[in-house]
């Protein structure tokens, strides 16, 4: 897969490696030596690298390339479940019945695509509405504490929402020649 199609979080690592690959071995040894003995040089080097990095990313990748996988997901949700149609339509004037019928299309199709791409699991074990103990050293990314937050863990509380995490991510691969901005092509039927 080309760097253009990777998620944004991967980008700096790939490009950094690429950059480093172009610095000769002895130059690297010299740099390493200077970093060891001269902290300001190290800071300057990191800063310079970051600037080069940012410039490269900006120049090489327009936003639709940086976020290509997001657009891919949107395209899939539209293709399978007409999500963009649904979101783009003003629904205030329609009856609940009409909205409900459309929602079945959206729910059924998006669910199929969603389950194809992700395996989703609760972020915390337990049943919603039941007591739960949050131990010390809990994972603050997976557990958010609310209400009367004081004292030291373990905390006793009630599980209000079990949260979600993506246990598996299986995004499709996209041809590089495709324009990721096209979420759904126009359809023209020939008679």
């Amino acid at each position: 897969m080309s760097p253009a199609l990777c998620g944004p979080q991967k980008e700096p690592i790939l490009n950094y490696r690429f950059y480093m690959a172009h610095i000769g071995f002895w130059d690297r040894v010299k740099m390493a030596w200077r970093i060891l003995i001269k902290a300001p040089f190290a800071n300057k080097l990191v800063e310079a690298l970051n600037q080069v990095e940012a410039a490269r990313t900006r120049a090489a990748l327009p936003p639709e390339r940086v976020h290509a996988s997001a657009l891919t997901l949107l395209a899939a949700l539209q293709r399978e479940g007409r999500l963009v149609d649904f979101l783009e339509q003003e629904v205030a004037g329609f009856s609940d019945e009409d909205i409900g019928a459309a929602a079945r299309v959206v729910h059924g199709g998006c669910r199929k695509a969603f389950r194809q791409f992700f395996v989703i699991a609760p972020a915390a074990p337990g049943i919603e509405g039941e007591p739960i103990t949050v131990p010390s050293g809990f994972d603050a990314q997976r557990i958010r504490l609310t209400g009367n937050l004081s004292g030291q863990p373990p905390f006793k509380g009630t599980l209000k929402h079990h949260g979600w995490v993506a246990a598996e991510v299986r995004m499709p691969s996209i041809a590089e020649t495709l324009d990721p901005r096209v979420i759904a092509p126009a359809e023209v039927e020939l008679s």
Partner: protein
Amino acid sequence: MTRHTVGIDLGTTNCALAFRDLSEGSGDVVSIPQLTAPGVVEERLLLPSFIYVVKQGEFPDGALDLPWEKQFAYAAGDLARGHGAKVPARLVASAKSWLSHSSVDRSSALLPWQAPPEVERISPVEASARYLRHLAGAWKMSRKGDLDSEEVVLTVPASFDAAARELTTQAAKQAGLQDVTLLEEPQAALYAWIESVGDAFRKTVKVGDVILVVDVGGGTSDFSLIAVTEQDGDLQLTRMAVGDHILLGGDNMDLTLAHHLAQGKNLDSWQFVALTYGCRQAKELLFADLKLKKAPISIPSRGSALVGGTIKMELTREDVTRVLIDGFMPKVLVTDLPRTARRTGLTQVGLPYAQDPGITRHLAAFLTRQSRIAEGRSFVHPTAILFNGGVFKARALKERVTEVLNEWLAKDSGAPVKELEGGNLDLAVARGAAYYGWVRHGHGIRIRGGTARAYYVGVEAAVPAVPGLEPPVKALCVAPFGMEEGSNADIPPQEFALVVGEPTVFRFFSSSVRREDRAGDMIDDVVRNEEFEEVAPIETTLSIKSSKSGESGKLVPVNLQAAVTEVGTLELRCLEKGGSGRWKLELNVRGKEE
């Protein structure tokens, strides 16, 4: 490098791929990367057996590329099925059914069947080869090696005749596969069951059991009977009989429901496809939850105004019961035979779909036709039943078949059948095929039985010609029922003459019920005998070079001999009488005259 056996289910509507590691014996199914939209490659467990023939410029450059090849001309799989529904004239579907259709030239570029002249057509063989090449690509992506250096077991319907089997191996050759063995799908389903139950197999079935495999795929229904026997204290499985080719399957069911609901509605073809898809889902909902009275179906608008443009329908339990269960699995007597439409002089050459949708009637016909193994009863009594095919995810359909069968058995003072609970109904055939490859290496139990048909060449009786009356045709048995792979039949005493340099054509017949005929037996008047079916003719041209005499027009006396190859195909040869000449007879797949 580790060698594998690879099982391929080359289905009418879906293909699947599974393997077994020959050193460890472990195995699994292989997911198949495929285009799901232009430029989007995703993995799926099934490859829909559809090819979409692309018009140049229709998609952007690179939109049809697969991880293992660049592609411009066509797409196979999910994209082909989905986009093809909107452009039906460019869609190749049911290629497998065309492979077994003896009224057309199966090696010629026929498909898409109703395409405009500018569409480049392909033969059913080439279509099958393309699915196999796609699966080879998927195998490559799984990083287990090259498919052409693995032992491949390819499944075919038990009802495939000699020519259809030959064409299947031709497709495999075209796809570059070197080592291919054929296996009948119902047997593959039974192997998958044996694999899934493991040692419990010996507790579940006993000597004397007769297992009925009911395999209803997307486009075909296939029946087989497999007996549990014993030799030297070991359990053995022997395939006793297979049914005829019935072009009727789960897709017909969804279509019937869609037609039922579409009555009085103005749907375009795209919406009808969406309705068919909706029917399948609603049906599955109703079958899964017996308390539900109805399931909603929403058909999205074609344009972007989804809310307000969506058509609401519902499928009721009553629809499902009446249209599906009573329509496809009617409660009938074992003596009820399938209706066949009267043939008119001008038959349209399309696929010969089953005229009677009653699968239970086809089953009744199968069991009563096999009267020779019924042990004096009016039909063969199975003692166990194994279901295969996605259709039977619906318990209600399994239950109906079992109920009808048990009624027949009870009336004939037989005991009810027990159901052999299998694994995944969509993937069992591929898994079973991979397991069979493992069995061929000496592990586990093997199903024996050889060919499920006897084969005959037609010999025109020497009677004065009467205008409008076809002269009676006698049939000489050249290959008896039950020939094992890698064996030859005896040479019948009958002598034929080949004319050097001119094509010689033999009419060719098969029978799935006559198990007593030996090679050399002559049967009178086979054309009007229901036990026989005329299949594609066989032909050969004895070239001037290969004959000793080297003269065009000279008669060379020969005997016919049949052999079943290791692959599982039938081969007919001419042996020169009193000489060493041998010529292979080709099964003519260019269509018999109707």
